[in-house]
């Protein structure tokens, strides 16, 4: 099958030793020597390390909080070829506090192209190829095949399993990083015979309601910066084959920025029964090619099927335009306090959904026969809150379909996005 990358530039490696006419013998051109001198000065790195680095290709999947710092360091260090893969997201202003490869001027631009521009500004000699398609199970093997080392800088469970399964099948070293809130994790998978894959360590995916994202749970900018930077360190150790370097394989680094504590857990070796890199008892369970595996159902496996709530009895956002109705009702915003403090609709008070069950009796006593109007960011938590109230015997509660997002779209475009 044709490579999704099309024609990739051949890895040339840095120019070899040259004898100049004026009798100077030098390993690289003046520009290359000057640019990479500080790492070539390193005892274990040297000219040979730089040469090896220039002959390696590294694929960075995800051009976000992890991918930006990782790719910036790799391009700066002179990796032979860098591949950038992102699912075609455009740069959002809310990305900029952590995704340091993008700028305010590139808001709205394709993330891969925006990051590539930054990398070219740092090191104009870089060889960078980009694909704004994201990693898909169907093309995972072809996408990864042309590269020596893979960095998982993605932000979702499905991609993590696809990437790991493809790296396990191709035995490509995978430098995996992740971050959320104040915490991050780092590990290198599939880099040796004994080295486990992501699936050996996490054979079952987390239930969807246990997976937070930076968009909803928040993240301190430098935390993915720390982890993405550590991913670059691991990738450089692998690519330059630095003597005496111990790659973070069979180990997992747990970084907690809040307590400034780092723990390193010694991990298991490759699992004999792993579906991706072992031999499961039932051989039909073996994942040979991610293209043949249903990742959608797999990552949803742990979800407790929530009954599809009907929109019957719920309010359209436009109902909130009725000032009189709002005034007579008890209006509750069930988002976390941090979100409520950022922006809210006047007249709404904040009772976060996590505290709602404790407040139910107070609400019941206070509300009388008033209507209760609940709202949240997207209309999911508010629906849960309504059913909590119904269970507690509070009948006259309703909520807004689509939450504050719908309010912004349908009624008030001035309402802030976050």
């Amino acid at each position, binding site marked *: 099958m044709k490579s999704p990358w099309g024609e990739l530039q051949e890895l040339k490696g840095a120019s070899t030793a040259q004898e100049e006419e004026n009798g100077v013998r030098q390993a690289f051109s003046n520009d290359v020597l000057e640019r990479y001198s500080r790492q070539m000065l390193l005892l274990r790195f040297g000219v040979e390390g730089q040469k090896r680095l220039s002959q390696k290709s590294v694929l960075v999947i995800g051009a976000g909080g*992890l991918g930006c710092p990782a790719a910036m360091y790799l391009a700066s260090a002179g990796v032979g070829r860098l591949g950038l893969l992102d699912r075609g997201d455009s740069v959002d202003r809310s990305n900029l506090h952590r995704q340091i490869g993008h700028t305010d001027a590139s808001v709205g631009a394709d993330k891969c192209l925006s990051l590539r521009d930054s990398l070219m500004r740092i090191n104009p000699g870089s060889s960078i190829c980009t694909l704004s398609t994201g990693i898909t199970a169907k093309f995972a093997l072809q996408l990864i095949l042309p590269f020596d080392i893979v960095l998982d800088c993605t932000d979702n469970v499905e991609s993590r399993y696809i990437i790991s399964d493809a790296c396990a099948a191709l035995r490509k070293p995978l430098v995996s990083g992740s971050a959320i809130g104040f915490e991050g*994790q780092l590990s290198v998978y599939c880099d040796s015979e004994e080295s486990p894959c992501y699936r050996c360590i996490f054979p079952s995916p987390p239930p969807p309601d246990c997976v937070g*994202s930076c968009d909803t749970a928040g993240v301190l900018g430098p935390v993915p910066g720390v982890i993405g930077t550590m991913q670059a360190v691991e990738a450089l150790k692998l690519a330059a084959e630095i003597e005496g370097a111990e790659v973070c394989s069979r180990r997992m680094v*747990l970084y907690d920025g809040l*307590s400034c504590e780092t723990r390193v857990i010694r991990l298991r070796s490759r699992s004999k029964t792993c579906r991706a890199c072992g031999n499961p008892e039932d051989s039909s369970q073996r994942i040979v090619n991610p293209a043949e595996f249903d990742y959608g159902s797999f990552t949803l496996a742990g979800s407790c099927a929530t009954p599809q709530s009907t929109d019957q009895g719920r309010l359209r956002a436009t109902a909130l335009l009725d000032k009189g109705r709002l005034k007579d009702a008890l209006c509750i915003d069930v988002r976390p306090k941090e979100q409520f403090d950022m922006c809210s609709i006047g007249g709404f008070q904040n009772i976060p959904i996590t505290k709602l069950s404790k407040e139910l009796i107070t609400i019941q006593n206070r509300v009388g026969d008033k209507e209760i109007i609940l709202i949240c960011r997207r209309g999911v938590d508010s629906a849960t809150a309504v059913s909590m109230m119904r269970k507690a015997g509070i009948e006259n509660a309703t909520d807004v379909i689509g939450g504050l997002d719908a309010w912004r779209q349908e009624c008030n475009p001035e309402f802030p996005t976050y």
Partner: protein
Amino acid sequence: MITPSPICSRSIHIEILLIVKQCFGNEVGYSLLYFNDEIEFCVQRSDEMTMIVKVLFFAKAKELCGGVTSSSFELTGPTTTCATLFFPAFSKEALVNEHILKRFPQLESIIPICVLSLNLEYVEDVRELSDGDEIALIPPISGG
């Protein structure tokens, strides 16, 4: 208390018990256990030992516990001087069900997918615990 055994005659059994008694004195109780073809002995103090085990919570597990980073659990059980003995009271299931989930029931959905480590070492199960041991519950982080 002497238990007859399929693989060990009564006289040998008594002999072993006497040796154990010489080593550990009178203030403790003993029992012999037989696993497959091997004899192992357990020395049990008359007063049961209490140990403190610290459980660390990471990422979503920490969030579900309301930001608590660690919690200490007091476990009571027989002590053992024989390293290969397995105490059901300290299995992973017992630790999780009888201790961790009793204090933090909200962790139920996430525990099955957590990596479990004992003193910074990945473990599939928890078979032996000693005073001061540190167990970590590590769910995967997906964000980036």
